[in-house]
């Protein structure tokens, strides 16, 4: 009945009659399950936990969920513009590297592969970029990875080498 054909249930826009039927069925089957679980709770000596913690907690959390949390729209916007500014600054910073082609999208994996590894995702060499070697490649496609994990490995290796050459003091 509900959620048929793989459609997601949209309670907000559901006709009341349909919702009532759904809820009645829900309550009916929940009660059936409850009778089965009630005995189990007793057998497992969990009655006190159920009565003194679980039942009152459900009621308490329900109230808290319905009350919700107050949000300051002004602060959301203020933080939003701070973050946006920061994102633009970082973007400018990234484009200032001569290895980065100005037409690239920094959110595009294909473009980042070119910058980091001087190759495309099929490992064909391209101009520009840092010429690093991908420490991780996709298992399925073999494409070089630009995941956080791959970047962490590269960063660690680069830092190690910079330390080894004593370049940190000079930069």
């Amino acid at each position, binding site marked *: 009945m509900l959620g048929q054909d793989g459609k997601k249930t949209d309670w907000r826009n559901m006709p009341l009659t349909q919702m009532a039927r759904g809820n009645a069925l829900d309550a009916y089957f929940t009660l059936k399950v409850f009778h089965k679980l009630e005995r189990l709770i007793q057998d497992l000596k969990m009655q006190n936990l159920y009565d003194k*913690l679980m039942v009152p907690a459900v009621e308490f959390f329900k109230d808290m969920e*319905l009350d919700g949390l107050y949000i300051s729209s002004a602060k959301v916007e203020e933080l939003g513009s701070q973050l946006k500014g920061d994102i633009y600054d970082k973007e400018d910073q990234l484009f200032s590297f001569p290895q980065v082609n100005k037409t690239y999208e920094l959110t595009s994996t294909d473009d980042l592969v070119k910058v980091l590894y001087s190759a495309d995702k099929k490992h064909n060499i391209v101009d520009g970029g840092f010429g690093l070697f*991908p420490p991780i490649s996709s298992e399925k496609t073999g494409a070089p990875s630009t995941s956080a994990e791959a*970047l962490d490995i590269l960063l660690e290796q680069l830092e190690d080498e910079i330390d080894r050459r004593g370049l940190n003091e000079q930069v």
Partner: protein
Amino acid sequence: MNRFEKLEQDKQISRSVVTSMDNQKLVGARNFIKSLLEFRRSRKLFDTYISGVREAMKYNGSNKIYVEYRLDGTVTGRLSNAGYEAGGNRMGISFHTLPRESRFNIRDYVVAPKGYKFITADMKSMELRILAHLAKEKNMAKAFNDRVDLHTYSAAMTFGKQMDKVTKEERQIAKAVSFLTVYGGTEKTLATKQGISFKKAKSIIDGWMAAFPGVPKYMELVDKFITNNKYAYTIFGRRRNLPNAGADAKYIRQEAFRQGLNFTVQSSASDTLICCMLGLHNELKKRKLGSKIVATVHDSIELIAPESEVDETVSLLNYHMTSYPYIKENFGINFSVPLEIEVVVGDSFGSGEEYHLSNPTS
């Protein structure tokens, strides 16, 4: 070549390429990756916590967001929390994951309404207090009873030093071992996290266990119980079935044991906090106060209170979280270590100052 061998080989090639780079390119690549990671982090913060909240407020038609709590959302017995389901989508944000970011104070937009204050009460070192109680660990209990910094104390015990001679690094390592015990880690975890050898990690853990002998005894007790019964239970009567405790493979049995040990501590800590909230919630209602519990994040309770009720609310918070009458009355539990809280009062979740009661005994 299997997957792991290929990964290892690629890492080695990557390292040799790095080694052959000229200085300028080397430093440039490092700086580029650092900036790229920061760029991604800012974008993620924006998408999750700005766009996500804007979308939720638009959907709700108000300056409010709603979150969903799940009492059965984790196997460890802790509460889980997420935005709520609306129109088939997760709407809004998880209150539990609101980051403590120093540059961008995201938590600052969760506010108290006009005329109200936002109160956050944190239970201090809650899981370790629970562990001290469960394990009847006298040295740990002494530290809590004497109200000294537990991690400095355990560093002093572990490394055989006076407390004032403990270095920052030693405190950090002792703290890591304490949490490792609660979360069921091994010397391998400690070695990896602290960048020390396995041998050294093992000797530090051995030192910690010798300093708190009640803990290994408790672990042994839990292990025996789980092996015999294939489940673990908590002081509140909650249980977690652990069928893998009977597995043939040793590492699977060990995993089941770690899960069981972790469950006895984490679930008890979580239930302790829930009970404190229930007691406080009932009392606020009984007194017909305008203060309300609005959220909980692991070891803390968040409230909003009319400005005129702040002192009374904090006083009640203090009573229900440190004297826990609801737990004593309904579960007969009397912790052998004191429970302590830290209260911050301000205008939002992300701001405020530590609050001290004008009359703590009220």
